[in-house]
Protein backbone atom coordinates (compact mmCIF):
# COMPACT_ATOMS: atom_id res chain seq x y z
CA UNK A 1 0.00 0.00 0.00
CA UNK A 2 2.40 2.69 1.05
CA UNK A 3 5.99 2.77 0.12
CA UNK A 4 7.05 5.74 2.20
CA UNK A 5 6.26 7.77 5.29
CA UNK A 6 6.60 11.21 6.78
CA UNK A 7 9.30 10.03 9.16
CA UNK A 8 12.76 11.37 8.52
CA UNK A 9 14.78 8.22 8.04
CA UNK A 10 17.64 8.43 5.57
CA UNK A 11 16.59 5.27 3.80
CA UNK A 12 13.11 6.56 3.52
CA UNK A 13 14.25 9.91 2.21
CA UNK A 14 16.03 8.16 -0.63
CA UNK A 15 13.04 6.03 -1.40
CA UNK A 16 10.67 8.95 -1.30
CA UNK A 17 12.97 10.99 -3.50
CA UNK A 18 13.02 8.24 -6.06
CA UNK A 19 9.29 7.78 -5.71
CA UNK A 20 8.67 11.45 -6.38
CA UNK A 21 10.90 11.33 -9.41
CA UNK A 22 9.17 8.23 -10.57
CA UNK A 23 5.71 9.76 -10.37
CA UNK A 24 6.65 11.94 -13.30
CA UNK A 25 8.05 9.08 -15.30
CA UNK A 26 6.21 7.13 -17.94
CA UNK A 27 8.85 4.49 -18.55
CA UNK A 28 6.92 1.54 -17.17
CA UNK A 29 6.38 -1.35 -19.50
CA UNK A 30 3.53 -3.73 -18.84
CA UNK A 31 4.67 -7.30 -18.17
CA UNK A 32 2.80 -10.56 -18.29
CA UNK A 33 1.03 -11.26 -15.00
CA UNK A 34 2.81 -13.49 -12.50
CA UNK A 35 1.78 -17.11 -12.87
CA UNK A 36 1.14 -19.39 -9.91
CA UNK A 37 4.46 -20.62 -8.54
CA UNK A 38 6.44 -18.58 -11.05
CA UNK A 39 9.96 -17.50 -10.07
CA UNK A 40 12.16 -15.18 -12.14
CA UNK A 41 15.12 -16.48 -14.13
CA UNK A 42 18.22 -16.48 -11.94
CA UNK A 43 20.17 -14.16 -14.24
CA UNK A 44 17.38 -11.56 -14.45
CA UNK A 45 17.12 -8.20 -12.71
CA UNK A 46 13.83 -9.43 -11.27
CA UNK A 47 15.71 -12.25 -9.50
CA UNK A 48 17.98 -9.62 -7.98
CA UNK A 49 14.96 -7.74 -6.75
CA UNK A 50 13.60 -10.92 -5.19
CA UNK A 51 16.93 -11.50 -3.45
CA UNK A 52 16.82 -8.03 -1.91
CA UNK A 53 13.24 -8.70 -0.83
CA UNK A 54 14.30 -12.02 0.74
CA UNK A 55 16.85 -10.19 2.86
CA UNK A 56 14.33 -7.55 3.80
CA UNK A 57 11.86 -10.23 4.82
CA UNK A 58 14.40 -11.88 7.12
CA UNK A 59 15.17 -8.51 8.73
CA UNK A 60 11.48 -7.86 9.37
CA UNK A 61 11.03 -11.32 10.86
CA UNK A 62 13.90 -10.61 13.26
CA UNK A 63 12.63 -7.16 14.21
CA UNK A 64 10.35 -8.45 16.94
CA UNK A 65 7.35 -6.69 15.46
CA UNK A 66 5.70 -9.72 13.87
CA UNK A 67 2.54 -10.79 15.72
CA UNK A 68 2.83 -14.50 16.52
CA UNK A 69 -0.87 -15.22 16.83
CA UNK A 70 -1.93 -18.27 14.80
CA UNK A 71 -5.61 -17.25 14.88
CA UNK A 72 -4.90 -13.82 13.43
CA UNK A 73 -2.41 -15.26 10.98
CA UNK A 74 -4.92 -17.85 9.76
CA UNK A 75 -7.63 -15.20 9.44
CA UNK A 76 -5.56 -12.91 7.20
CA UNK A 77 -4.08 -15.79 5.23
CA UNK A 78 -7.59 -17.15 4.73
CA UNK A 79 -8.70 -13.91 3.10
CA UNK A 80 -5.67 -13.88 0.80
CA UNK A 81 -6.31 -17.47 -0.24
CA UNK A 82 -9.95 -16.70 -0.95
CA UNK A 83 -8.92 -13.72 -3.08
CA UNK A 84 -6.18 -15.52 -5.04
CA UNK A 85 -6.47 -19.29 -4.45
CA UNK A 86 -3.94 -20.18 -7.12
CA UNK A 87 -1.29 -18.01 -5.39
CA UNK A 88 -2.19 -19.05 -1.83
CA UNK A 89 0.95 -21.09 -1.26
CA UNK A 90 3.18 -18.43 -2.77
CA UNK A 91 2.10 -15.50 -0.60
CA UNK A 92 3.52 -15.25 2.93
CA UNK A 93 1.70 -13.04 5.41
CA UNK A 94 3.46 -11.24 8.24
CA UNK A 95 1.19 -9.26 10.56
CA UNK A 96 3.26 -6.39 11.96
CA UNK A 97 2.48 -4.80 15.33
CA UNK A 98 2.41 -1.16 14.29
CA UNK A 99 -0.52 1.19 14.87
CA UNK A 100 -0.48 2.99 11.51
CA UNK A 101 -2.78 2.03 8.64
CA UNK A 102 -0.64 0.19 6.13
CA UNK A 103 0.09 -2.95 4.17
CA UNK A 104 2.94 -3.67 1.79
CA UNK A 105 3.66 -6.32 -0.80
CA UNK A 106 7.11 -7.45 -1.85
CA UNK A 107 7.96 -8.89 -5.25
CA UNK A 108 9.04 -12.19 -3.70
CA UNK A 109 5.55 -12.78 -2.28
CA UNK A 110 5.71 -11.58 1.29
CA UNK A 111 3.04 -9.26 2.49
CA UNK A 112 3.15 -7.03 5.55
CA UNK A 113 -0.22 -6.36 7.14
CA UNK A 114 -0.03 -3.79 9.91
CA UNK A 115 -2.23 -4.09 12.96
CA UNK A 116 -3.35 -0.48 12.50
CA UNK A 117 -4.99 -1.59 9.24
CA UNK A 118 -6.81 -4.56 10.77
CA UNK A 119 -8.03 -2.33 13.61
CA UNK A 120 -9.40 0.20 11.14
CA UNK A 121 -11.12 -2.24 8.78
CA UNK A 122 -14.76 -2.32 9.85
CA UNK A 123 -15.35 -5.75 8.38
CA UNK A 124 -13.71 -8.54 6.42
CA UNK A 125 -14.79 -7.01 3.09
CA UNK A 126 -12.80 -3.83 3.73
CA UNK A 127 -9.73 -5.77 4.75
CA UNK A 128 -10.15 -8.04 1.70
CA UNK A 129 -10.15 -4.99 -0.55
CA UNK A 130 -6.84 -3.71 0.83
CA UNK A 131 -5.26 -7.17 0.64
CA UNK A 132 -6.59 -7.52 -2.90
CA UNK A 133 -4.98 -4.20 -3.78
CA UNK A 134 -1.64 -5.53 -2.51
CA UNK A 135 -2.09 -8.76 -4.42
CA UNK A 136 -2.71 -6.63 -7.48
CA UNK A 137 0.78 -5.12 -7.16
CA UNK A 138 2.23 -8.61 -6.79
CA UNK A 139 0.36 -10.30 -9.63
CA UNK A 140 0.95 -7.41 -12.04
CA UNK A 141 4.67 -7.46 -11.12
CA UNK A 142 4.64 -3.74 -10.41
CA UNK A 143 7.90 -3.89 -8.46
CA UNK A 144 10.00 -4.99 -11.40
CA UNK A 145 8.21 -2.59 -13.73
CA UNK A 146 8.95 0.20 -11.31
CA UNK A 147 12.53 -0.89 -10.87
CA UNK A 148 13.15 -0.78 -14.58
CA UNK A 149 11.47 2.61 -14.91
CA UNK A 150 13.56 4.07 -12.10
CA UNK A 151 16.74 2.65 -13.58
CA UNK A 152 15.91 4.23 -16.90
CA UNK A 153 15.01 7.63 -15.54
CA UNK A 154 17.27 8.34 -12.56
CA UNK A 155 20.98 8.76 -12.29
CA UNK A 156 23.31 6.00 -11.21
CA UNK A 157 23.80 7.45 -7.74
CA UNK A 158 20.12 7.30 -6.87
CA UNK A 159 19.89 3.83 -8.29
CA UNK A 160 22.82 2.71 -6.18
CA UNK A 161 21.41 4.33 -3.04
CA UNK A 162 18.09 2.60 -3.39
CA UNK A 163 19.73 -0.76 -3.96
CA UNK A 164 22.20 -0.49 -1.10
CA UNK A 165 19.69 1.00 1.32
CA UNK A 166 17.21 -1.75 0.70
CA UNK A 167 19.78 -4.53 0.68
CA UNK A 168 21.78 -3.28 3.61
CA UNK A 169 18.78 -3.15 5.94
CA UNK A 170 20.58 -0.89 8.40
CA UNK A 171 17.88 -0.59 11.05
CA UNK A 172 14.48 -2.17 11.09
CA UNK A 173 12.85 -0.76 14.20
CA UNK A 174 11.40 2.36 12.65
CA UNK A 175 7.94 2.47 11.18
CA UNK A 176 9.07 4.08 7.95
CA UNK A 177 11.89 1.61 7.52
CA UNK A 178 9.60 -1.32 8.13
CA UNK A 179 7.41 0.08 5.36
CA UNK A 180 10.39 0.57 3.10
CA UNK A 181 11.56 -2.97 3.69
CA UNK A 182 8.13 -4.22 2.81
CA UNK A 183 7.78 -2.48 -0.48
CA UNK A 184 11.30 -1.56 -1.52
CA UNK A 185 10.04 1.37 -3.56
CA UNK A 186 7.02 3.48 -4.23
CA UNK A 187 4.68 2.54 -7.01
CA UNK A 188 3.52 5.04 -9.57
CA UNK A 189 0.03 6.41 -9.45
CA UNK A 190 -0.87 4.38 -12.50
CA UNK A 191 0.19 1.28 -10.64
CA UNK A 192 -1.89 2.31 -7.65
CA UNK A 193 -4.94 2.74 -9.85
CA UNK A 194 -4.28 -0.61 -11.48
CA UNK A 195 -3.93 -2.23 -8.05
CA UNK A 196 -7.21 -0.60 -6.98
CA UNK A 197 -8.89 -2.17 -10.00
CA UNK A 198 -7.32 -5.52 -9.22
CA UNK A 199 -8.41 -5.28 -5.60
CA UNK A 200 -12.00 -4.59 -6.64
CA UNK A 201 -11.96 -7.43 -9.17
CA UNK A 202 -10.46 -9.96 -6.78
CA UNK A 203 -12.82 -9.09 -3.94
CA UNK A 204 -15.87 -9.24 -6.20
CA UNK A 205 -14.77 -12.59 -7.66
CA UNK A 206 -14.28 -13.95 -4.15
CA UNK A 207 -17.74 -12.81 -3.06
CA UNK A 208 -16.80 -9.75 -1.01
CA UNK A 209 -18.85 -6.57 -1.36
CA UNK A 210 -16.98 -3.99 -3.53
CA UNK A 211 -19.07 -1.19 -2.04
CA UNK A 212 -16.96 -1.51 1.10
CA UNK A 213 -13.79 -0.49 -0.78
CA UNK A 214 -14.28 3.29 -0.76
CA UNK A 215 -15.57 3.24 2.81
CA UNK A 216 -12.22 2.36 4.32
CA UNK A 217 -10.60 5.30 2.50
CA UNK A 218 -13.38 7.61 3.67
CA UNK A 219 -12.66 6.61 7.27
CA UNK A 220 -8.95 7.11 6.78
CA UNK A 221 -9.52 10.49 5.18
CA UNK A 222 -11.59 11.57 8.19
CA UNK A 223 -8.66 10.73 10.47
CA UNK A 224 -6.25 12.63 8.27
CA UNK A 225 -8.44 15.72 8.17
CA UNK A 226 -8.75 15.64 11.96
CA UNK A 227 -4.96 15.73 12.27
CA UNK A 228 -4.91 19.01 10.35
CA UNK A 229 -1.21 18.74 9.49
CA UNK A 230 0.67 19.43 6.33
CA UNK A 231 2.76 16.32 6.85
CA UNK A 232 1.35 13.52 4.71
CA UNK A 233 0.32 10.34 6.46
CA UNK A 234 2.27 7.17 5.77
CA UNK A 235 -0.46 6.05 3.43
CA UNK A 236 -1.30 9.26 1.60
CA UNK A 237 2.33 10.18 0.95
CA UNK A 238 2.60 8.13 -2.22
CA UNK A 239 -0.92 7.60 -3.42
CA UNK A 240 -3.45 9.34 -5.65
CA UNK A 241 -5.43 12.02 -3.86
CA UNK A 242 -7.91 10.40 -1.51
CA UNK A 243 -10.88 12.29 -2.93
CA UNK A 244 -10.00 11.15 -6.44
CA UNK A 245 -9.52 7.61 -5.27
CA UNK A 246 -12.75 7.46 -3.30
CA UNK A 247 -14.74 8.85 -6.21
CA UNK A 248 -13.23 6.34 -8.63
CA UNK A 249 -13.80 3.42 -6.29
CA UNK A 250 -17.41 4.44 -5.64
CA UNK A 251 -18.08 4.63 -9.35
CA UNK A 252 -16.51 1.28 -10.11
CA UNK A 253 -18.03 -0.44 -7.07
CA UNK A 254 -21.49 0.81 -8.06
CA UNK A 255 -21.04 -0.68 -11.51
CA UNK A 256 -20.02 -4.06 -10.14
CA UNK A 257 -22.76 -6.61 -9.53
CA UNK A 258 -23.46 -7.26 -5.83
CA UNK A 259 -21.92 -10.48 -4.55
CA UNK A 260 -24.07 -13.56 -5.03
CA UNK A 261 -22.95 -14.86 -1.66
CA UNK A 262 -21.19 -13.29 1.26
CA UNK A 263 -17.59 -14.42 1.40
CA UNK A 264 -16.07 -15.15 4.76
CA UNK A 265 -12.73 -16.70 5.61
CA UNK A 266 -12.91 -19.93 7.57
CA UNK A 267 -12.56 -19.71 11.34
CA UNK A 268 -13.31 -16.78 13.63
CA UNK A 269 -14.57 -13.66 11.93
CA UNK A 270 -13.39 -10.06 11.92
CA UNK A 271 -15.30 -9.10 15.06
CA UNK A 272 -13.75 -11.99 16.96
CA UNK A 273 -10.26 -10.98 15.85
CA UNK A 274 -10.89 -7.41 16.97
CA UNK A 275 -12.27 -8.58 20.29
CA UNK A 276 -9.06 -10.53 20.88
CA UNK A 277 -6.68 -7.72 20.01
CA UNK A 278 -8.57 -4.43 20.28
CA UNK A 279 -7.29 -3.46 23.72
CA UNK A 280 -3.62 -4.07 22.87
CA UNK A 281 -3.88 -2.32 19.52
CA UNK A 282 -5.65 0.67 21.01
CA UNK A 283 -2.82 0.86 23.53
CA UNK A 284 -0.43 1.05 20.57
CA UNK A 285 -2.63 3.72 19.03
CA UNK A 286 -2.21 5.88 22.15
CA UNK A 287 1.57 5.60 21.87
CA UNK A 288 1.38 6.91 18.31
CA UNK A 289 0.31 10.22 19.85
CA UNK A 290 -1.90 11.31 16.98
CA UNK A 291 -4.62 12.35 19.37
CA UNK A 292 -7.08 13.97 16.98
CA UNK A 293 -6.96 11.03 14.56
CA UNK A 294 -7.30 8.59 17.44
CA UNK A 295 -10.48 10.33 18.60
CA UNK A 296 -11.99 9.92 15.12
CA UNK A 297 -11.04 6.25 15.09
CA UNK A 298 -12.47 5.71 18.57
CA UNK A 299 -15.74 7.35 17.63
CA UNK A 300 -16.06 4.84 14.78
CA UNK A 301 -15.06 1.86 16.88
CA UNK A 302 -17.50 2.94 19.59
CA UNK A 303 -20.44 2.04 17.35
CA UNK A 304 -19.77 -1.56 18.30
CA UNK A 305 -21.69 -1.97 21.56
CA UNK A 306 -19.52 -4.86 22.65
CA UNK A 307 -16.51 -2.54 22.52
CA UNK A 308 -18.14 0.38 24.33
CA UNK A 309 -16.24 0.05 27.63
CA UNK A 310 -12.85 -0.41 26.01
CA UNK A 311 -13.40 2.39 23.53
CA UNK A 312 -14.60 4.86 26.17
CA UNK A 313 -11.58 4.03 28.34
CA UNK A 314 -9.19 4.73 25.49
CA UNK A 315 -11.02 7.94 24.65
CA UNK A 316 -10.35 8.99 28.22
CA UNK A 317 -6.71 8.05 27.80
CA UNK A 318 -6.42 10.20 24.68
CA UNK A 319 -7.86 13.21 26.50
CA UNK A 320 -5.64 12.61 29.55
CA UNK A 321 -2.51 12.36 27.39
CA UNK A 322 -3.43 15.34 25.22
CA UNK A 323 -3.97 17.56 28.25
CA UNK A 324 -5.59 20.53 26.52
CA UNK A 325 -7.98 22.86 28.33
CA UNK A 326 -11.00 20.88 29.43
CA UNK A 327 -9.44 17.51 28.62
CA UNK A 328 -9.30 16.40 32.27
CA UNK A 329 -13.06 16.89 32.51
CA UNK A 330 -13.60 15.06 29.21
CA UNK A 331 -11.30 12.27 30.35
CA UNK A 332 -13.09 11.84 33.67
CA UNK A 333 -16.42 11.68 31.86
CA UNK A 334 -15.08 9.05 29.44
CA UNK A 335 -13.64 6.92 32.26
CA UNK A 336 -16.95 7.02 34.12
CA UNK A 337 -18.74 6.05 30.91
CA UNK A 338 -16.31 3.16 30.46
CA UNK A 339 -16.78 1.93 34.01
CA UNK A 340 -20.57 2.14 33.69
CA UNK A 341 -20.58 0.33 30.34
CA UNK A 342 -18.58 -2.60 31.69
CA UNK A 343 -15.82 -4.37 29.83
CA UNK A 344 -13.30 -1.61 30.48
CA UNK A 345 -9.94 -2.50 32.00
CA UNK A 346 -9.61 -1.96 35.73
CA UNK A 347 -7.02 0.72 34.93
CA UNK A 348 -9.97 3.00 34.13
CA UNK A 349 -10.31 3.55 37.89
CA UNK A 350 -6.63 4.43 38.23
CA UNK A 351 -6.71 6.84 35.31
CA UNK A 352 -9.87 8.42 36.69
CA UNK A 353 -8.04 8.91 39.97
CA UNK A 354 -5.13 10.58 38.19
CA UNK A 355 -7.25 13.16 36.35
CA UNK A 356 -9.39 13.87 39.41
CA UNK A 357 -6.27 14.38 41.50
CA UNK A 358 -4.89 16.74 38.87
CA UNK A 359 -8.21 18.61 38.91
CA UNK A 360 -8.04 19.01 42.68
CA UNK A 361 -10.92 16.67 43.46
CA UNK A 362 -9.01 14.71 46.08
CA UNK A 363 -12.01 12.99 47.67
CA UNK A 364 -13.17 11.41 44.42
CA UNK A 365 -9.57 10.70 43.41
CA UNK A 366 -9.17 8.67 46.60
CA UNK A 367 -12.34 6.74 45.83
CA UNK A 368 -11.10 5.98 42.32
CA UNK A 369 -7.70 4.75 43.52
CA UNK A 370 -9.38 2.57 46.13
CA UNK A 371 -11.64 1.12 43.44
CA UNK A 372 -8.54 0.32 41.39
CA UNK A 373 -6.83 -1.45 44.28
CA UNK A 374 -10.01 -3.37 45.06
CA UNK A 375 -10.42 -4.38 41.42
CA UNK A 376 -6.76 -5.27 40.95
CA UNK A 377 -5.56 -6.69 44.26
CA UNK A 378 -2.44 -8.13 42.62
CA UNK A 379 -1.57 -5.04 40.55
CA UNK A 380 2.20 -4.69 40.24
CA UNK A 381 1.93 -0.94 40.93
CA UNK A 382 -0.12 -1.46 44.09
CA UNK A 383 2.52 0.08 46.37
CA UNK A 384 2.71 3.20 44.22
CA UNK A 385 -1.05 3.73 44.10
CA UNK A 386 -1.24 3.07 47.85
CA UNK A 387 1.35 5.83 48.29
CA UNK A 388 -0.93 8.19 46.32
CA UNK A 389 -3.67 7.48 48.87
CA UNK A 390 -1.30 8.39 51.69
CA UNK A 391 -0.38 11.63 49.91
CA UNK A 392 -4.06 12.36 49.45
CA UNK A 393 -4.54 12.05 53.21
CA UNK A 394 -6.24 8.69 53.32
Amino acid at each position, binding site marked *: MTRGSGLAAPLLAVLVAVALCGCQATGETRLQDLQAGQRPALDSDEAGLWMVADRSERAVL*ESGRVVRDPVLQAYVKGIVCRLAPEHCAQVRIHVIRTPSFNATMSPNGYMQVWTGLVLRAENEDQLAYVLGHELGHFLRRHSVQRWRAIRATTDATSFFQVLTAAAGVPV*VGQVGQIAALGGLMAYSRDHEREADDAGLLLMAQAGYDPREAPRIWEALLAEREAEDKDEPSIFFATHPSPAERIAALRERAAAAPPPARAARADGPGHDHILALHRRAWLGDELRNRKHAASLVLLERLGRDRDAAGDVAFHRGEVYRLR*GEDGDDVRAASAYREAIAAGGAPVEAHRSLGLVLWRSGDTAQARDAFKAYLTGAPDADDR*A*MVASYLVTLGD
Partner: protein
Amino acid sequence: MRTWIALLAAAALLTGCATWTLVDGGARQDVAGGYSVEPQVAWSRIRQGGVELWTVDGPALQALRFFEPIGDGDPLFAAQGSDELPVFSSRMTASEIQEFVVHSTQRGGGARVAARELRPWRLGSLEGFRFELDFLNESGLEMTGIVAGAVAGEKLYLIAYTGARAHYFPKYATHVERLLASVRISA
Protein backbone atom coordinates in the same frame (compact mmCIF):
# COMPACT_ATOMS: atom_id res chain seq x y z
CA MET B 1 14.06 9.22 15.35
CA ARG B 2 16.46 6.95 17.09
CA THR B 3 16.51 4.96 20.28
CA TRP B 4 18.62 6.30 23.08
CA ILE B 5 21.42 4.01 21.95
CA ALA B 6 21.40 4.91 18.29
CA LEU B 7 20.83 8.58 19.03
CA LEU B 8 23.92 8.85 21.17
CA ALA B 9 26.13 6.72 19.00
CA ALA B 10 25.14 8.56 15.82
CA ALA B 11 25.59 11.96 17.41
CA ALA B 12 29.05 11.08 18.63
CA LEU B 13 30.11 9.73 15.28
CA LEU B 14 28.70 12.59 13.25
CA THR B 15 29.80 15.54 15.31
CA GLY B 16 33.03 14.24 16.70
CA CYS B 17 32.45 16.59 19.65
CA ALA B 18 31.78 13.96 22.27
CA THR B 19 34.51 11.63 23.37
CA TRP B 20 34.60 8.55 25.52
CA THR B 21 36.47 8.82 28.80
CA LEU B 22 37.13 6.35 31.58
CA VAL B 23 35.35 6.39 34.94
CA ASP B 24 37.48 4.83 37.66
CA GLY B 25 35.74 2.65 40.20
CA GLY B 26 35.84 3.60 43.85
CA ALA B 27 35.75 7.40 43.59
CA ARG B 28 32.61 9.58 43.72
CA GLN B 29 31.79 11.06 40.33
CA ASP B 30 29.67 14.04 39.27
CA VAL B 31 27.32 13.02 36.46
CA ALA B 32 25.11 14.80 33.91
CA GLY B 33 24.84 18.05 35.84
CA GLY B 34 22.52 16.70 38.49
CA TYR B 35 23.87 13.63 40.19
CA SER B 36 26.88 12.20 41.93
CA VAL B 37 27.51 8.48 42.37
CA GLU B 38 30.13 6.04 43.61
CA PRO B 39 30.81 3.39 40.97
CA GLN B 40 32.33 0.11 42.14
CA VAL B 41 33.93 -0.79 38.82
CA ALA B 42 35.40 1.11 35.87
CA TRP B 43 32.99 2.32 33.16
CA SER B 44 33.39 4.19 29.89
CA ARG B 45 31.35 7.41 29.76
CA ILE B 46 30.15 9.81 27.08
CA ARG B 47 27.85 12.84 27.35
CA GLN B 48 25.77 13.84 24.37
CA GLY B 49 22.25 14.98 23.58
CA GLY B 50 21.15 15.58 27.16
CA VAL B 51 22.23 12.18 28.42
CA GLU B 52 25.39 10.84 30.03
CA LEU B 53 25.89 7.22 29.08
CA TRP B 54 28.06 4.75 30.94
CA THR B 55 28.87 1.30 29.60
CA VAL B 56 31.30 -1.56 30.07
CA ASP B 57 30.47 -3.86 27.16
CA GLY B 58 29.18 -1.28 24.65
CA PRO B 59 25.91 0.70 24.58
CA ALA B 60 24.14 -1.74 22.25
CA LEU B 61 24.48 -4.46 24.86
CA GLN B 62 24.42 -2.68 28.20
CA ALA B 63 24.17 0.96 29.26
CA LEU B 64 23.55 3.12 32.27
CA ARG B 65 22.00 6.44 31.34
CA PHE B 66 21.82 9.55 33.50
CA PHE B 67 19.38 12.02 31.96
CA GLU B 68 20.23 15.66 32.50
CA PRO B 69 17.45 17.13 34.68
CA ILE B 70 14.34 17.30 32.46
CA GLY B 71 12.18 20.40 32.71
CA ASP B 72 8.53 21.15 31.93
CA GLY B 73 7.79 20.68 28.24
CA ASP B 74 10.98 18.75 27.49
CA PRO B 75 11.02 15.33 25.82
CA LEU B 76 13.07 12.48 27.25
CA PHE B 77 15.46 12.85 24.33
CA ALA B 78 15.72 15.24 21.41
CA ALA B 79 15.02 13.86 17.96
CA GLN B 80 13.75 14.83 14.56
CA GLY B 81 9.96 14.73 14.45
CA SER B 82 9.97 15.40 18.17
CA ASP B 83 6.61 17.16 18.02
CA GLU B 84 5.10 13.72 18.44
CA LEU B 85 7.32 12.80 21.37
CA PRO B 86 5.71 12.98 24.78
CA VAL B 87 6.96 15.77 27.00
CA PHE B 88 7.48 15.94 30.73
CA SER B 89 5.28 17.95 33.07
CA SER B 90 6.24 18.58 36.67
CA ARG B 91 2.59 17.84 37.56
CA MET B 92 3.00 14.22 36.49
CA THR B 93 2.57 11.45 39.00
CA ALA B 94 4.99 8.51 39.01
CA SER B 95 2.43 6.53 36.99
CA GLU B 96 2.45 9.21 34.31
CA ILE B 97 6.25 9.47 34.31
CA GLN B 98 6.41 5.71 33.76
CA GLU B 99 4.02 6.19 30.83
CA PHE B 100 6.20 9.06 29.57
CA VAL B 101 9.26 6.77 29.51
CA VAL B 102 7.37 3.88 27.90
CA HIS B 103 5.85 6.02 25.14
CA SER B 104 9.18 7.77 24.49
CA THR B 105 10.97 4.44 24.18
CA GLN B 106 8.32 3.17 21.79
CA ARG B 107 8.38 6.35 19.70
CA GLY B 108 12.16 6.10 19.61
CA GLY B 109 12.14 2.70 17.94
CA GLY B 110 11.67 0.15 20.72
CA ALA B 111 9.10 -2.57 20.18
CA ARG B 112 6.82 -4.30 22.68
CA VAL B 113 7.79 -1.79 25.34
CA ALA B 114 6.32 -2.69 28.71
CA ALA B 115 6.86 -1.39 32.23
CA ARG B 116 6.17 -3.27 35.43
CA GLU B 117 6.50 -3.09 39.20
CA LEU B 118 6.23 0.66 39.64
CA ARG B 119 6.84 1.37 43.30
CA PRO B 120 8.01 4.16 45.62
CA TRP B 121 11.76 4.37 45.88
CA ARG B 122 14.23 6.81 47.34
CA LEU B 123 16.65 8.41 44.92
CA GLY B 124 19.33 10.00 47.05
CA SER B 125 17.45 12.12 49.55
CA LEU B 126 14.37 12.43 47.32
CA GLU B 127 11.17 10.43 47.50
CA GLY B 128 10.90 8.98 44.06
CA PHE B 129 9.94 5.83 42.21
CA ARG B 130 11.36 2.90 40.39
CA PHE B 131 10.11 0.42 37.78
CA GLU B 132 11.32 -2.30 35.45
CA LEU B 133 11.29 -1.90 31.68
CA ASP B 134 11.23 -4.59 28.96
CA PHE B 135 11.43 -4.02 25.20
CA LEU B 136 12.91 -5.27 21.95
CA ASN B 137 15.57 -3.09 20.37
CA GLU B 138 15.80 -2.28 16.65
CA SER B 139 17.40 -5.64 15.95
CA GLY B 140 14.75 -7.54 17.84
CA LEU B 141 17.09 -8.22 20.77
CA GLU B 142 15.29 -8.70 24.10
CA MET B 143 16.28 -5.88 26.43
CA THR B 144 15.42 -5.37 30.07
CA GLY B 145 16.09 -2.53 32.44
CA ILE B 146 15.63 -0.59 35.65
CA VAL B 147 14.40 3.00 35.69
CA ALA B 148 14.66 5.12 38.83
CA GLY B 149 13.66 8.73 39.20
CA ALA B 150 12.38 11.58 41.30
CA VAL B 151 11.01 15.07 40.76
CA ALA B 152 12.56 18.03 42.57
CA GLY B 153 12.40 21.74 41.82
CA GLU B 154 10.06 20.97 38.88
CA LYS B 155 12.80 18.87 37.26
CA LEU B 156 12.77 15.16 36.59
CA TYR B 157 15.91 13.27 37.63
CA LEU B 158 16.02 9.95 35.84
CA ILE B 159 18.51 7.09 35.67
CA ALA B 160 18.02 4.04 33.45
CA TYR B 161 20.07 0.87 33.33
CA THR B 162 19.25 -1.33 30.32
CA GLY B 163 20.91 -4.32 28.73
CA ALA B 164 20.37 -7.48 26.77
CA ARG B 165 18.27 -9.78 28.91
CA ALA B 166 20.69 -12.60 28.19
CA HIS B 167 23.99 -12.13 30.01
CA TYR B 168 24.66 -8.40 29.68
CA PHE B 169 21.93 -6.95 31.90
CA PRO B 170 22.55 -9.29 34.83
CA LYS B 171 26.33 -9.04 34.41
CA TYR B 172 26.50 -5.64 36.15
CA ALA B 173 23.08 -5.50 37.82
CA THR B 174 24.56 -5.86 41.30
CA HIS B 175 27.03 -3.05 40.67
CA VAL B 176 24.24 -0.86 39.38
CA GLU B 177 22.13 -1.52 42.48
CA ARG B 178 25.04 -0.34 44.65
CA LEU B 179 25.57 2.64 42.39
CA LEU B 180 21.88 3.60 42.62
CA ALA B 181 22.09 3.34 46.38
CA SER B 182 24.98 5.82 46.31
CA VAL B 183 23.14 8.48 44.28
CA ARG B 184 23.11 12.03 45.53
CA ILE B 185 20.99 14.61 43.72
CA SER B 186 22.39 18.11 43.38
CA ALA B 187 19.01 19.81 42.93
